[in-house]
């Protein structure tokens, strides 16, 4: 049997892995997007706690960001995957199920990525809020806007604009971090490449392809981010 060449692997033909790889890449994007969204929600609360929370909330938010930026993401994934499985299994026992129930890898992965990126989101949002001029908020108060209106019309849009470059960086980190979710058995891009490498004996080709796809996704998203930055700061005068 002859081994398929590099481009045969990329085809849709009998030796081709294109379909599987596209499905894997799609799963990678799904994990990254869900993790990113969870992280953004956590980050919003984290930033709010750091800016206008009481003492307890502030200390809690500080502890969260310090801890999550100091420990490896892989540990968080292990905690959620194995810890979640152990928790579900013991809950299952209560209801009379026996044997081991495993925690869904996708959920564990997305949560883990979300919790780790939440720490970065928190700092990005906090920094962006600080960049909003006090005068803008004062002007909104002077116009008689209520608290919620002020947040919706003035603070949120301005904060988002300042946060955009930081958010782009966090997205790049999340995208790369999603590769770690492969250890839970979710068939995303890296896991799919492992499967391909195992069944064809061509690990270099498969990991090279995976690397190129990651590079393509990150390049496309950085271009999109730059467009978005330009779009949302079109009202800003420069120089």
């Amino acid at each position, binding site marked *: 049997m002859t081994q398929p060449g590099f481009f045969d692997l990329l085809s849709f033909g009998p030796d081709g892995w294109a379909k599987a790889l596209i499905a894997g890449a799609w799963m990678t994007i799904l994990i990254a997007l869900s993790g990113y969204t969870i992280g953004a929600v956590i980050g919003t609360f984290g930033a709010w706690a750091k800016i206008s929370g009481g003492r307890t909330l502030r200390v809690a938010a500080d502890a969260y960001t*310090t801890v999550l930026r100091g*420990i490896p*993401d892989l*540990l968080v994934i292990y905690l959620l995957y194995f*810890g979640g499985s152990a928790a579900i299994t013991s809950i299952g026992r209560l209801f009379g199920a026996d044997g081991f129930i495993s925690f869904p890898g996708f959920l564990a992965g997305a949560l883990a990525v979300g919790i780790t990126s939440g720490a970065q989101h928190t700092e990005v949002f906090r920094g962006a809020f600080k960049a909003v001029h006090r005068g803008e908020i004062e002007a909104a108060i002077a116009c008689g806007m209520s608290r919620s209106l002020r947040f919706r019309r003035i603070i949120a849009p301005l904060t988002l604009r300042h946060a955009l470059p930081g958010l782009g960086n966090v997205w*790049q980190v999340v995208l790369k971090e999603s*590769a*770690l979710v492969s250890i839970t058995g979710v068939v995303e891009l*890296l896991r799919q490449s492992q499967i391909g490498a195992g069944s064809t004996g061509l690990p270099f080709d498969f990991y090279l392809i995976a690397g190129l796809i990651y590079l393509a996704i*990150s390049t496309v998203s950085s271009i999109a981010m730059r467009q978005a930055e330009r779009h949302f700061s079109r009202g800003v005068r420069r120089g």
Partner: protein
Amino acid sequence: MDWEFTQETFISLVSALPLTLSLAATAIALGAILALALALARTSGIVVLDWFARAYVFIFRGTPLLVQIFLIYYGLSQFPAVRHSIFWPVLRDAYWCAVIALSLNTAAYASEIIRGGLLSVPHGQIEAARACGMPRLMVFRRIVLPLAIRQALPGYGNEMISMIKATSLASIITIMEVTGVAARIISETYRAIEVFLVAGFIYLAINFLLTRLVQLVEFKLSPHLRQPENAAEAVIAGDAR
């Protein structure tokens, strides 16, 4: 929480700590040399070198570290030429593959930090050194590099912390460093929370010490930004008056 189990876990994780530290230290040291070379290539003004460094940084920052590790550890063995070469004893070894991947990866990030430091050196300083008659290499060694290092240090500290965290990925290619041992204990006992707390504590402790160390070096390297002690007293005395 089971105190005895926690203690046992702590002892087995701490005995894996030297491996984590040696991975990180070797990768940071090798990465720093490569990063300096890349940063010099970027700032050299020679088009070929500049584009090589740009491409390098783009590729290594745009792909996950785990893919890079797999490509080196599993990927290279695909080629008989590699298996029969003199490098095989190194490339067969998971430890060295992890070190190579981590070094190549950190070099990409660190080169940008160093480049920022090099660019921040005020032109006047270089002019002054030239005016003193220093040759190019001496200007670099005595003026540009020390100023650049001082400027790049805070960013470099963050990169070192990232590297400490990144060594955990070596556990996926069978290296039993702290995270590897933690994963083994978790999969044997299914007590994820205790093991996580102990392992997390160890990583936090390393990173806390590292941050302090970088702060200390930063302090030592910037005597010109501090007021001399007697001058500070003079200011206080002046205020009182």
